[in-house]
């Protein structure tokens, strides 16, 4: 950690710059230098650069505690959350680019909002059920082990790091990515969801779905929430195959 070194480092940030409102200026890399401080995250560093050196610099931070998923960016070529990345873990020179695969808003800011809303609509990312909510009824019981399992998948913060780091998503814009497949798995394992296995099969079984994955699993390496994306893929593949033979839900607690 930086606090153990005797002298503060001078960090050199090479930041991708492009403002779509000024199309006459071609994209370029701009260098900024700042003194490293203890526990400095990219949240602190980028704000310091904006406030002291170039107030036109665009980037997104909201919660600054790795729960809102706003600040995905390429840090020395690898997708990561800016707020969760400490400069102490990085070399003196730090290259920052916007996440690929998403629309560019400006500099490091990308349009993940529209991508994720589109994904949710594509996979019908909600509980599908026929009954109406009954305000006088008690909640339907659920085994806590199933609730924990759903929660585990529900923890995805839709930061887009897995999509940006995905070899398939970078060449095939319609690929659902690990986050999309994880979202599907989340509803597949939820006993409140009444969709039949075949209906999932239609969404996941083409080249945009689980069989589009070529198995590099960068998603699993870069996920800032440590979601078990390897397990998600094997779960969905298993279910897709099993749906040919059976239409019943198995017990997700046994996964």
């Amino acid at each position, binding site marked *: 950690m930086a606090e153990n070194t005797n002298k503060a480092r001078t960090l050199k940030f090479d930041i991708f710059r492009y403002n779509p*409102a000024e199309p006459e200026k071609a994209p370029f890399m701009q260098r900024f230098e700042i003194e490293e401080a203890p526990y400095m995250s990219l949240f602190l560093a980028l704000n310091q650069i904006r406030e002291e050196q170039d107030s036109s610099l*665009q980037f997104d*931070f*909201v919660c600054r505690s*790795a729960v809102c998923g706003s600040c995905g960016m390429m840090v020395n070529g690898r997708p990561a959350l800016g707020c969760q990345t400490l400069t102490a873990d990085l070399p003196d020179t730090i290259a920052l680019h916007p996440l690929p695969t998403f629309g560019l808003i400006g500099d490091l800011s990308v349009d993940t*909002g529209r991508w994720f809303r589109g994904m*949710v609509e594509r996979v019908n990312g909600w509980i599908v059920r026929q009954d109406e909510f009954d305000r006088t009824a008690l909640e339907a*019981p659920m*085994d806590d082990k199933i609730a924990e399992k759903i929660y585990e998948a529900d923890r995805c913060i839709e930061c887009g790091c897995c999509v940006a780091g995905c070899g398939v998503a970078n060449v095939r814009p319609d690929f659902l990515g690990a986050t999309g497949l994880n979202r599907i798995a989340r509803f597949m394992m939820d006993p*409140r969801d009444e969709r039949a296995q075949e209906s999932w099969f239609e969404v996941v079984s083409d080249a945009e779905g689980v069989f589009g994955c070529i198995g590099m699993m960068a998603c699993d390496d870069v996920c800032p929430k440590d979601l078990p994306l390897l397990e998600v893929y094997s779960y969905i593949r298993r279910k897709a195959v099993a749906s040919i033979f059976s239409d019943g839900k198995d017990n997700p607690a046994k996964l």
Partner: protein
Amino acid sequence: MESFYTSDVLVIGGGLAGERAAIEAAASGLKATILSLVPPRRSHSCAAQGGMQAALGNCVKAAGDNANWHFLDTVRGSDWGADQEVARMFAEEAQVAVREMAYWGVPWTRLTPGKNSYFIKGQRVEIDEPEEKAGMIMHRDFGGTAKWRACYASAGTGHSVLYAVDSEVSRLGIEVRDRMEALSLIYEGDRCWGVVARCLRTGKLTAFLARATVIATGGYGRIYGKYTTNATINEGTGAMLALNTGSVPLGNMEAIQFHPTGLWPSGILITEGCRGDGGYLVDKDNIRFVAELEPEKQELASRDVVSRHMMQRVKDGKGAPSKFGPHIWLDLRHLGEAHLKTKLREIWEICRDFAGIDPVKEMIPVRPFQHYSMGGVRVNKDGQAYNMRGLFAAGEAACWDMHGFNRLGGNSLAETVVAGRIVGQRVAQFVDSETLDVGTALAETFVKEQEARIADWMGRKSGGASVYDIRDALGETMIDKVGIFRKEQELQEAVEEIRGYLQQIKTIGLRNSAAGVNPELTFALRLEGMLKLALIAAKGALARKESRGAHSRVDYPQRDDKNWLKRTLARWPLGASEPELSYEPVGLLDLPPGERGYGHATRIPLEQDIEDYNKSVDAAQKAAGRNDTVEPQGSQIKWGAWQQADGKAASS
């Protein structure tokens, strides 16, 4: 360029309260449109961690819980500052709301029957949970409650609830315009017709016209600069919209909550659920001082009380030293690795990522940080803003007012979905009888006003202080002088300093002239409003010569029910250089003012008979400008029902 856009219901803010209100409107067949600073799943609602209060009474330590208990705890927590009609309505509806979230897919932690091991008041306790409650929604203990009541999904409750609600928004096809900031209401006289909004992708302005407008923009914690647990976007943008009409009042802006456990020094929230699950607060000598000072509730007294004990400990030189200054320790080690990595998983991650510590083996450095805005756009119990037809508010942005001077942990997450639901219904009823009767000329006037504001900022010469320097100075003023402990001289200084900043911003300019959204301009457009909100909070705190909940005056340590059983209302008349403060009664009293059961404060009793007080409430509220444009729900109070909650504790 798109310059006009129409909708039935326009919701400003894509967090839980706004989305829940939009769902209610859409479900009744109306076209609802949500404008949000960020994609809705990135709203600050996602950062709520430990739980959502609803008296389901499922586990053994929640046995016998019901809305009466929840009502009692909420009013006591508020230090009798709450509107008791609203608190009652809320407590009844919270149970429905939490079950609706289960219906929409929230993976609530569920009750496991048989032997469960808990930490209660420093002791490991084994409790047999009954078989017949297997799989029902589980509760954890939170501060200031008589029963275990917080329903939770690990320590990511807000995330899971927000994702469930946003999924419903997507299912209903409700349009969300993310990266869209409302800069001004569009209104004519006392009728609101929508907003002028600036696109945070392009910088372009659009007039959004609607039959009803709902402000659901969250709190204003960022007036405390970096001394807050709040997200960077909690800058009071919704309160400013209302304030800038000149006629709509904000309520209780001096009522500002400090959460006992922000991670030191970053201020990232560490949930109250840590103490609910048995965590200790200890000083540098490893003494559980809060447990000593609060023998009844121990670490689970209300947040205002625990925060004061902690800061007093630090002032007394008993804080643990660090290079960032002294702090208190939060000790979770005895809860064990399995518990920390499942039921408090997000806390374990935050400690790892942002402090480099493992709470399984190490204690967590914490200190109180600004956390919640009890104040906001003053609305009646239907969510209708005063003095402006067609304008509503819900959630933290509103002063509805179920929290009074201190909100209980877990009650805000519950409020978002309860208020969203109730206010959404009132909005739908209101819209039903209203037509969109507004010309584009009116909208254009307001668009031009904002264009002029932007041109003014872009045209000024830069030099001297930056907008960020003034933001930082404001944060220091607020934490030093309008913080946990308040007194006359410091508050007076704060008022003077903030007045100075308001003058100063007229003389400064931006440091860049980039076209498009321009992040510095985006912030500059919020700064004046933040300063105004801060001035109102400081003036309100200076004027309120008593201590109530989170408002703690060291020079007036008693709660004064004789003179201050009142809500502060603040308007900023058009063209004025100062806000105007006025007061209204807190509302009908069902639970008579009494002891909270923690915090040991003395009080000056209400002299009036309760019945006389209640008779004066309605008249006084009307005189103060209450505007019942919607058929009011009528009193929701179940008179005296709280007495049946539990004979002993309820009457104490």
